[in-house]
Every structure is written in structure tokens, then in C-alpha cells.
């Protein structure tokens, strides 16, 4: 096998062939490479099993604050003994002259029997020419030394003392070639390149991950025989609420839940017959004075159901499978769980076979196609469907059941006033929630942050 080497690698190998054991610093000198190039070159050669890096630790000693003090003025006990050479001295005088080293000096000198104390005088008994530790202090003081050059017993005298000796541990690298490298010819095959080296990263242009999920869902519904319809995001309250049997004083119709457009209301909201029949249904069932001006107020749609019901009211099909995908709005505080604007899928089935078990069956089929098999149905309440259910799906990653689509059969109070005679199955839910499961996100805001780092690195097939 012939190997291709980078210039850096070639220079290092050649230098090591001449001088077999080197440090990064000596290599720098001999190859004229930069420290970073040396570091990378050694790393590459190590990975290729061509260089051995022997890391060793050594420690050097230097003086601390008190050590320096003693190196300059003598050890505290030496200073004390020197003061006593001209005869006994008063304890208080010595204390004054020696300051804070007086205590340790006294302690050591007494312990070693160099001095004697009478009532208030200190008398010198003997004065050794070299005190323990003095030799070491001199050695270290005149230059940093490695630990093994020092008399260990003499050193231990000083190590006991606070802030006397500092120990610095240093790592040094010794680089040598492996046997195979020693015999290797590093002159490259002419024109060859390093095909194993790392290459720069490229950023792919791509669709947004959420859009991918939306496309996937669209595809599933089309293959299940559904046709896609569109509608406006701005809707009159009439289609968003009234036509869906939501009374005008319902809490969902308050500013705190729904976005009303400031000063915008619709002149034409429906046919005279639609308006009359819807208002009659409200008056009869909810017992209040229905107000057309409330119905004219424009809102940002809170669901796509307004689009499907409008479509049904217009076409009155006997048989239909229709779906709608689009943005819906809620006046909520934005958090990791909630957005003010998100995407919803909404599907409806019209026909004589439209029954609750079929509604559940379509859900089961849809979930199966997005990879969710563990599902169950719970009853729930929506103002415009009866019966109403919600799907709970089991999320293996989270280890819990989470709520996905809501569904039901449109109430006669909804369909009858709009002239829809066949039963209508309807269901829908948020798409971000499904996409979060797919991309393993815990914060729904990430879909709209447009963080290029995330968009550029996300895996397409998940």
C-alpha cells in the first residue's frame, strides 16, 4: 500500500528520521512549521500509526512567598540564633525584631535544643553551621529545579512550612517514529492526493422540515382519496364561530383567546338564508339575542373548520372526501408548548357511510402511515360535533400518551341551517405536534426560529 502524505507530515517524518526523539518545540525549529501545523501533523501521524507520542510528567520546584522571604533573610530559626550570638536577649525585644516569624523560630529552636529560656531571657546553647532545609532553600532559590535533584529529607523540612515551596507539574511530549514509519519512503506518488483527509462541510439547500411534514401529510390524505381545498386565514366570525354553533357569548370568542382584527368587519358574510337559519338555530338552542354585527367581526381563523364548513355550505355534496391544510391562530402566550400561529390539518368525509367507526378507522389508518400504531380514543366535547372524540397516541420516546387529533360528526344544529343533509365526519389537529415527534423537538418555537445551524444540519429522512 502506498500512502499519500501531506507536506506537514513529510517534514515531520524527515526531521524525526535525522533526530529520532524530539519535542514539538524542537520539531518547530527543525521543520520551520508553525506550532499549530506541528500539532496537527503529529495528530495525523499518530492516527495513521506512524508516530509515537510519549507524554511524561515532570515536576519542578520554586519558592513561595515565605520561601522567598527566608531565601533573602535566612530561615526564621537562623535569624533568631544569629540575634543570640552576642549573648542572652530579652524575649520582648526578640519578638519586636523578628515579628511574625518569632513564633515558629522559637518553637523550632527550643524543640532542637539550640536555645534555653530563663524567666524573660533567651540564651543560645549551640548554633549548627547548617540548619535542616537550608541547603535545599539555597538550591531552589538559585533556580527552578526538578524534584529528583533534591535531597528528599532536607526538602521535607521545607514542605511542612506554609507557602514555602511550590510544585509545578509539567507535561512534556516526546515524539518518535514507529518502526514502520522509520523504513517508509515519504516521497509521494506523482499527482496523488490524500483521499483520506477531512474535507470542508457543504450546506445543502432544502425545504423546511415542517414543510416536509406538511407535504407528507398531504400525500397521505391524497392517497386515501381526499381532495385538498384552501381558504382564507382571515374569516368573519360568522364562519369561524356562528356557523359552527358557537354562541356569541362563548368564552372562545373573547379577545383573550381569539385574534380579532382591529376595526375590520365583513360586509357580506353569507347568503340571507344562511344568516337567517344560523341565527335561528342560535336563538332557539342557546336562547339569546343573536347579533349580526358580532358575526361580521373579522378574526384570524382559530381552526380550518371554517374553510371546510364554508365549502360544504356552498357545494352541498352527497359524497365527498376533502381536506385542508393551513395556518390557524390563537391568542396565547408563546412558550415551548404554544405558538400564536400554527398549522392544522382538517379532514371531512360526507356520505351515507359516514359513521363513528369509519371516522375512527380513518384516524387509525392515518396514524399507521405516519408510524404511530398505539392509539386509543376518548370522548370529548366540541361545540360543533356530536359525538366528539379525541385520539390519544402513545409516544415511545416520551413514554406517555399524548393528545393528537380531535374529531366528531357535525351536529345537526350546524349542518341543517346550511342545507347540508348528509352526515359529515370531521377531524383535525396541529401539525407541529406531529413534526415535533418526528424531529424529536421539545420546543415548538424551533420550527419558526429559522436557525440556519438547525435548518442546515437536519436529516431529511426521519
Amino acid at each position: 500500500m502506498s500512502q499519500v502524505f501531506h507536506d506537514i507530515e513529510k517534514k515531520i517524518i524527515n526531521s524525526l528520521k535525522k533526530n529520532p526523539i524530539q519535542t514539538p518545540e524542537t520539531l518547530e525549529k527543525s521543520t520551520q512549521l508553525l506550532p499549530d501545523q506541528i500539532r496537527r501533523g503529529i495528530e495525523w501521524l499518530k492516527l495513521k500509526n506512524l508516530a509515537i507520542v510519549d507524554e511524561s510528567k515532570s515536576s519542578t520546584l520554586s519558592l513561595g512567598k515565605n520561601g522567598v522571604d527566608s531565601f533573602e533573610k535566612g530561615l526564621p530559626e537562623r535569624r533568631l540564633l544569629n540575634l543570640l550570638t552576642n549573648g542572652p536577649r530579652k524575649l520582648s525585644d526578640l519578638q519586636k525584631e523578628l515579628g511574625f516569624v518569632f513564633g515558629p523560630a522559637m518553637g523550632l529552636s527550643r524543640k532542637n535544643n539550640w536555645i534555653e529560656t530563663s524567666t524573660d531571657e533567651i540564651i543560645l546553647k549551640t548554633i549548627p553551621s547548617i540548619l535542616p532545609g537550608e541547603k535545599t532553600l539555597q538550591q531552589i532559590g538559585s533556580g527552578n529545579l526538578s524534584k529528583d535533584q533534591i535531597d528528599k529529607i532536607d526538602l521535607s523540612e521545607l514542605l511542612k512550612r506554609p507557602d514555602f515551596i511550590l510544585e509545578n507539574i509539567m507535561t512534556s511530549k516526546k515524539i518518535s517514529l514507529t518502526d514502520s514509519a522509520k523504513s517508509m519512503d515519504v516521497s509521494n506518488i506523482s499527482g496523488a492526493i490524500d483521499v483520506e483527509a477531512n474535507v470542508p462541510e457543504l450546506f445543502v439547500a432544502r425545504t423546511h422540515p415542517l414543510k416536509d411534514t406538511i407535504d407528507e401529510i398531504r400525500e397521505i390524505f391524497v392517497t386515501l382519496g381526499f381532495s385538498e381545498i384552501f381558504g382564507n386565514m382571515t374569516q368573519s366570525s360568522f364562519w369561524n364561530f356562528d356557523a359552527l354553533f358557537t354562541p356569541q357569548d362563548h368564552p372562545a370568542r373573547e379577545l383573550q383567546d381569539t385574534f380579532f382584527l382591529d376595526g375590520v368587519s365583513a360586509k357580506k358574510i353569507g347568503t340571507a338564508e344562511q344568516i337567517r337559519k344560523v341565527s335561528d338555530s342560535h336563538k332557539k338552542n342557546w336562547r339569546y339575542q343573536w347579533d349580526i354585527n358580532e358575526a361580521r367581526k373579522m378574526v384570524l381563523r382559530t381552526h380550518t373548520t371554517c374553510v371546510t364548513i364554508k365549502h360544504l355550505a356552498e357545494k352541498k355534496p352527497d359524497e365527498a372526501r376533502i381536506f385542508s391544510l393551513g395556518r390557524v391562530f390563537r391568542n396565547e402566550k408563546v412558550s415551548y408548548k404554544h405558538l400564536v400561529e400554527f398549522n392544522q390539518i382538517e379532514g371531512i368525509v360526507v356520505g351515507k357511510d359516514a359513521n363513528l367507526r369509519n371516522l375512527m378507522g380513518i384516524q387509525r389508518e392515518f396514524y399507521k402511515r405516519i408510524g404511530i400504531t398505539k392509539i386509543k380514543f376518548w370522548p370529548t366535547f366540541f361545540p360543533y360535533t356530536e359525538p366528539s372524540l379525541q385520539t390519544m397516541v402513545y409516544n415511545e420516546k416520551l413514554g406517555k400518551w399524548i393528545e393528537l387529533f380531535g374529531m366528531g360528526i357535525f351536529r345537526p344544529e350546524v349542518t341543517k341551517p346550511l342545507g347540508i343533509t348528509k352526515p359529515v365526519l370531521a377531524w383535525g389537529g396541529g401539525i407541529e405536534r406531529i413534526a415535533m415527534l418526528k424531529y424529536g423537538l421539545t420546543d415548538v418555537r424551533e420550527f419558526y426560529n429559522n436557525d440556519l445551524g438547525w435548518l442546515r444540519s437536519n436529516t431529511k429522512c426521519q
Partner: protein
Amino acid sequence: MPVITLDYSRLQKLVGKVSKKQISESLPFLGLDVESEDEKCIRVEYSPNRPDYSTDFGIALGLQGLFGIKTGGIKLKIKKSTQYKINVTPSISKIRPYVTGIIAKNGKINGDILEQLIQMQEDLHMGIGRKRKKSSIGIHDLNKISFPLLYTTTTRNHKFIPLNSEKELSISEIISDTETGKDYGNLLGQSSQVPIIIDSNKKTVSFPPIINAAITTVTTKTKNLFVEVTGINKDDAEDMLSVVATILQSAGFTLENIQISGAKNSSPKLQEKKMSVDSSLINQTLGLNLNTSKIIASLKKSRLDAVSIGKNIVCTIPAYRFDIFGPMDLVEEVALGYGIQNFEPTISPSQTIGQTNTLSLQLKSLDQTMIGLGFLEALNSSLSSKRVLYDMTNRDSKKIISVLDSKSQEHTILRDCIFPGLIENLSRNIHESYPQKIFETGSIFNLDNPISEKTNLAVISAHKDANFTEIKSVLQTALKIGFGIQIETKTAINPSFKNGHCANIIFNKNIVGIIGEIDSKIIDNYKIRVPVVGFEISLSDSILKSI
């Protein structure tokens, strides 16, 4: 939606012999969403259409049905009495015209029960009472009241000691100084007269819909209750009363009636109603094939009574089930009694052929073209802010469409174009490597009888060599490959773009968009350190084929 905390041991006592596990597994099948649960308690969310689930007494009735411990309708037993009367004066008609009520005797009220009753009252006020506007409840200690009562009006100088107060306050003071006064005082408007219930000793019992008198406060020593409901609609007030009466009876009280007269008021009936449903509607809707006896058994489990007359099922519906409007509601009751878990999902072959909308198809082709040109797709909200849409990009904000009372400052205005959002996106990515090339297709909004929604494409390129030629090449190629059309660019002046480096996009002699180098002030505003070029083009009117 309201949430109620259920104590397992209390619930087990009320329901009968069932385990905690059985309870927690069955609650969802009453339509209750489990919020959280621990050893002692379970918190569930209930739908506002079932106010009887605002207490554990009501939930216990439902569970008994599901478990088959007790099934069939809950009958109110109201003892006839002439002892309790409320007279109503005509002056009230214009303010809060209706009052109704009931007497509940010989109950035991401990701390838990008191808590349940207060919770129920709050939930009823918020839900069907529409924050006390439609109807509101007062629950009083019967023994502190001398009948007959008078429901009448009084002035704002009228004084009494309200609940949770030690001293006498005037109505005006109650409205301005007490918590409930501040919250609900506005329901009375500016009227100088306000509603009041006074007993035969001229003592104030209640100031609806704001506050009760302190003297009638219910405590754990209270045995007998007087419940009054006032409101603006007679039927709504009686609906609310029916929930309270049902719960109090379940809590062990004996009910006695109150006679009410004057100013279009009358004694409450709290009557059951009959409704019939065709068994074939039930089976067709549910996709089942149940015989009438199975249907009746299912309805009984949902705590309704029913008999069959031929194919018809005739149901008896207690007054508190005013959520039942018509036969379809009975179909759901059958489904719940039958058990949603017992439904086997089926799928019938489609009779229709599916179709993607042409708009989706065209936009998808455009996305693919942009990606081919090396652009990454971004997504922004249609609801943006003045800062992003106008201030930062130096655009005219005269014709904005804003939403009322947004909880988020970043989402207050519907966008009328897309590129300002994309520039803002760049500002959040200045640490990422360049070139940064992004695009977005989406809806934009304009005021137009009332609002027009159109689809735009916006494209932005940012890197050290970005210039007009580059972005015009992108525009030209995108439209040629995407839609097979040729565009032209004609010099224009636009406050978001650099003078002399900006043009209108012309298609079929119409201006359909804008292209150019983004003005350096805008780039500075966002602390972006490279030139930015871009364009935005309207697709709806002439470029996308009609949908």
C-alpha cells in the same frame, strides 16, 4: 377549561366498590381529561357543557353508571312546601329580571363538602353563568333567614355587612372596595338602582350578582340551605338551579320547593323532558347494530332513562342535562354508555379520487426551483410586529392590519410582505457561515373589502460579494424555470433598498414586485456585516395559474 381535583377516597365512598385504578382508567371515558395524578388525588379537566362534573358528587353519578353500580336517570325529589316564598317587584325587570331558588335541608357539611360547593359555584359562574352575567348563585344558611323574601331594587346607598367583612358597607363601597365588587360591579352598568334580596325582617340576604350578606354565611355547622339563582334569562337561571339541586340531593340534602311570584317570575319546575330518537339513527351514526334493549341499557349507563316504542327510543332527560339539544346528543349518550373502548375502527373503501390542490402543486414546483438555485427555505409567522415589518426596514406603516389585545408583542400585525421577516432571520444568524441564501413563499395580507390574501415569494442572499446582478439572475431563472415567464426590471425608488440599486419587477406591463440591494442603514440596524440583496414578488394575480 375548568379543572377539578378529585380525592380518591372520597370518590370511592361515593361511587361504591371500585379500585383507584378502575377510577383513573374510567374517568376519560366520561369525557374527563386527566391532568395529573398522585397517590391521594387525581386532577381532571371537564368540558363546560357538563357543569354537573364541577363536583365529585356529579362525577360519582357518572362513574356509577359506567361501572353499572347504579344506572338510569337521577330523579329530583322535591318536597312540596308553601313555607318559602319569594316576591319579585316590577322595578327589577330592567336590571336582572329573574330569580329562582330551592331549599335544601338536613345535610351534613364538612370542610370537603363546603370546598366542593364553593368550587361548583365558581365553575358555574365562569361557565354557563358567563362570568355571572347570565346567571349567578347565592348559597345561604336557611336558619338565618326569615321568609317571605323580596327580590327588588335598592339604591347604591343601601348598606349591609357583606360576606368576608366585619363592618357595614354601602353598595357603592362594595363595588369600589371589595374584590368581587371590583370584578363584577360593571355588570350593573351605571344604573342608580341595583338588585337586592331582603328577608321579612328587612335584613339583606344577597346583593346579586355581586355578594351575599355575611349573616347567611354557610359554615360546617350549617344544616339547611337556601339557594337563589338570579339572571337575565329565566330558563338559564333554572338550568343553573337544576345543577345545584341535583348536586345537593346527591350530597344528602332533602329538597323543598320555593314559591316565586311577581313581575313575570314563577316557581321553578326543574322538570324532566322527553325526547325520542330513532334506533336506526343511532346505529347508522355509530356504525353499530344494537338492538333496542342494548341501546336502552347503554343510555341507562349514561344516567338517562329510556323505553322503546317500536323502533323509537323515548328518553327521559333530567333538567340538569340541558346540554342535550336533540336526538344526536342521545346518540352520543348511547356511545358513551356502550363504551368508546368497545368500538372497533373500520375503514370503508373510498368512493372518491384524491387530488392535491393546483396551488399546492405550483408552490411545490417553485420551492424545488429555489432549492435548485441553492436557497434554503425559511418559515415565518404571518402575524408579525411593527418593528420587523416597518421600523427596522424603513417601510410605511399607514395601512397596517393589527389584531386586538395580542398577548405577544412580536405578533401584533399581519404581514403585508415577507422580506422584512427574512432580513430579521439573517440578523439571528450572523454567527453562521456565509453565504446565507434563504427564501419563503407564503400569504400576505392587505385591506381590501375587507381583506385580500395573496401568495408572495421572497428571496434573500447575504454574503460579501452579494450584488444586484446576482439576485436578478436568481429572479430571472426562478420565474423562467418555475413558470416559463420572462420578467423585466425598471428603475425604482424604495425606502428599503439602496438608491440606484433597486428596481420594480415588471410582468405583462404590471408591477409585480421589487428587487435590489437592501439599504445599508437596514443592514446596520440589524448589525449584519455583509451586503444583502433580495426580491419579493406577488404570485397570486398573474403568475400562479388560477386555482
